Structure formats: structure tokens, C-alpha cells
């Protein structure tokens, strides 16, 4: 096989694997953003965090938020709730950032999938 083609195919295979791993990492990140509170399930978003922050600024102590299944949930201590969702969101995002950076360092298919 022509050496140029061989190199291109190797790179193509590498990119395919890299993109797959990036996609799986993104899906794992989405799972790690799921937060459970008082029997309700929330996927943490910047919108939710900002909304809760705005409600605290408006001096609300408790509010009703609908969860991922559209079930209303009474959040009784808004400050505590805010602290927890910010903490979970930042931890999940930091882990995603670190894992993504590690992934990009791997320059071969074998290293991408950590195959021994």
C-alpha cells in the first residue's frame, strides 16, 4: 500500500476512535449531571442553577421546581439546594474537563482505549 494512504488510513482510524471516545465521555458527563433531591430527578443545567440563584436573590426561601419527569417538587431550603447543585455541577464539569484533556493526549488507538 502507498505509504501516504497507509498513514491517512491510520489517522482516519485514530480520529474515528477519538470521536467515539469523546462522544461517550460527553454522555457520561450528562449522566453525572443527574441530581436527586427528595425523590425527584433533576438534570443540572446552567439554566437551573441561574434560576435558583435568581430566586435566592429575590429572597425566596422555598420554591416549586418541576423535575425531569415534570413532577413538581417543593424545594424547602433553597440555599442548601443551591449549594448542592453548584457543587455537583462543578465537580462533574471538572471531571469532564480533566478526562477530555487526558483523552486528547493519547495519540494512538491503543492508548485511547487503554488496551493492554
Amino acid at each position: 500500500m502507498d505509504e501516504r494512504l497507509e498513514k491517512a488510513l491510520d489517522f482516519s482510524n485514530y480520529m474515528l476512535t477519538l470521536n467515539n471516545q469523546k462522544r461517550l465521555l460527553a454522555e457520561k458527563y450528562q449522566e453525572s449531571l443527574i441530581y436527586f433531591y427528595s425523590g425527584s430527578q433533576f438534570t443540572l443545567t446552567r439554566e437551573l442553577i441561574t434560576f435558583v440563584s435568581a430566586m435566592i436573590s429575590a429572597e425566596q426561601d422555598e420554591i416549586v421546581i418541576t423535575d425531569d419527569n415534570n413532577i413538581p417538587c417543593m424545594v424547602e431550603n433553597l440555599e442548601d439546594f443551591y449549594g448542592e447543585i453548584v457543587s455537583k455541577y462543578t465537580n462533574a464539569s471538572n471531571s469532564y474537563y480533566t478526562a477530555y484533556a487526558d483523552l486528547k493526549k493519547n495519540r494512538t488507538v491503543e492508548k485511547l482505549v487503554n488496551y493492554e
Partner: protein
Amino acid sequence: MSKGIFLIARNNAHIDYVKQAVFLARRIKKYLGVPVTIATESVDYLELAFGVDDFDEVITLDDTGEFNQRYFYDGALSKKSASFKNNNRASVYDLTPYDETILMDTDYVISNDLLKSCFGSKSNFSIYKKSNDIAKVRDEQEFDTISNTSVDFYWATVVYFRKTETNKIFFDLVKHIEEEWNHYRRVYQITSTLFRNDFAFSIAIHIMNGFQNGNFAQELPGSMMYTTDTDILWQLKEDEMMFLVEKKDYLGEYTALKTQGQTIHVMNKSSLSRIIDQEFAND
């Protein structure tokens, strides 16, 4: 409120579902930390080959003699025809010893604690509707609706439910749909004659919702991640799995793919069996 996982393991000539159940029960203990009950026709085999220590309760199922036939692939190039016994799944409602139960297929490889949060949730019935083929090279439309012209598809692979009167009605309805399968598959425009629990559960949910989309069933957290039987589970270490997934348009060629901390429905039972053998040999 008691809570636990319920597994049904009905062996056929080719696939050892009991072995899968033992393997899964150990992972459930590790990642979810809840008791596990197994219902099987092969209690003697379970006791002899693996013991019953991994289970909270062992329930003996009668062999009804009913079975279906289908192809089981082991990667894109190898397949064999075998019987499988998928009937009577709805009996879980009557059999489960728990107030809150997660019914789970034995080829669902638990690798995180996400499902633990179902227990104590506000939902009385949760199931996966969203799904994710980890290969992303195949048409996933067959998992959107139960046929091209029919209702939404739900996965019977994992089902959370509480013992409530409404859920009793639901599981009785699933039994009825199974008994009258030829009628319901025609009404819901399913061309295959093969009975599938996914279809029966999807039809039952549609009926429970007043023959429309509704909120009888809530979504389980995350999405149902799966690989089909034309992919191969190649390696497993703790919560890491490496798969060889089909390469688009290149029959028999694969791309390596690694997951970490992600629970996957591994449909290639032959490759799962090989991995379980390796794991048990290492124990």
C-alpha cells in the same frame, strides 16, 4: 419499604442466563448495594454450579415448555439459532418480595450507582424510553417506535415499580397482551410474529395512558446504553469495558471503544459469557 433487584434467568441450550445472573448480582451488590432475587427454572444448577450466596431469595419457576426461536449473533460474522424463553415476565409483580423492585435483564452490565436513586423516588413506575447505541453506526429508529406506524418504544430491560394497585393492573395487562399476542401485534401493526417483552410493555403503557402518549411511565435516570449482538465485548476490568463495535459498511471489521463507569446493555451474550468466565476464573 423493602427494595431490591429482581432477575429472571431461564437457560436454553446455548446461553447460560443463570451464570449471567450470578455475575450481575455481584455487580449489583458492588455498585447499587441492594439485595437481589433470582427466579429460575434451574435452581439445582444454580446451587451446584455457583451456590446461592449472591441472592437474597431464590424463586423456582415452572418450566412452561413455551419458547421462541431467534438468531443470536456473536459479532457481525457468526450467528446461531437458539430457543429463548421470554414469556411470563409480567409475573414479576406477583413474585417479587420487595415493595420497590427493579426488574432487570441479566445482560445489563451495571457499572455505576445511577439506578440506586430510583428507590424512594416519586415515580411509581419508571422505564427507559431514551436509548443510545454506543456504536452510533446503525439506524436507531427501531427503538423509537414499536413499528414504523405505531406507538412509542419502551425498553423492558430495566423496569422500576412499586407494588400499587395501578401497577398490578399494568402487569396483568402485560400478561393479557402476551396471551393474545397475535391480536395485539396486528392492532399495533407489528409485522414480526415474535413475542417481545419490549413491545408488550410498550403496548401496555400506551393503553394505560388512555391510548395516547402520557405520563403513566416516568423515565429512568440517564438513557439505556446498549451494544447489539453484532458488536463484541472484548475486555472488562471493574467498571471499564472495551468493545469491538461494527464498522459502518465494512462487514466483519470493528472499531475499538472503551467505556468507563457506564452501565451497558450487552446484547452479545456469547461474548458476555466469555468475559464472565474470565472474571469467575480470576475470583
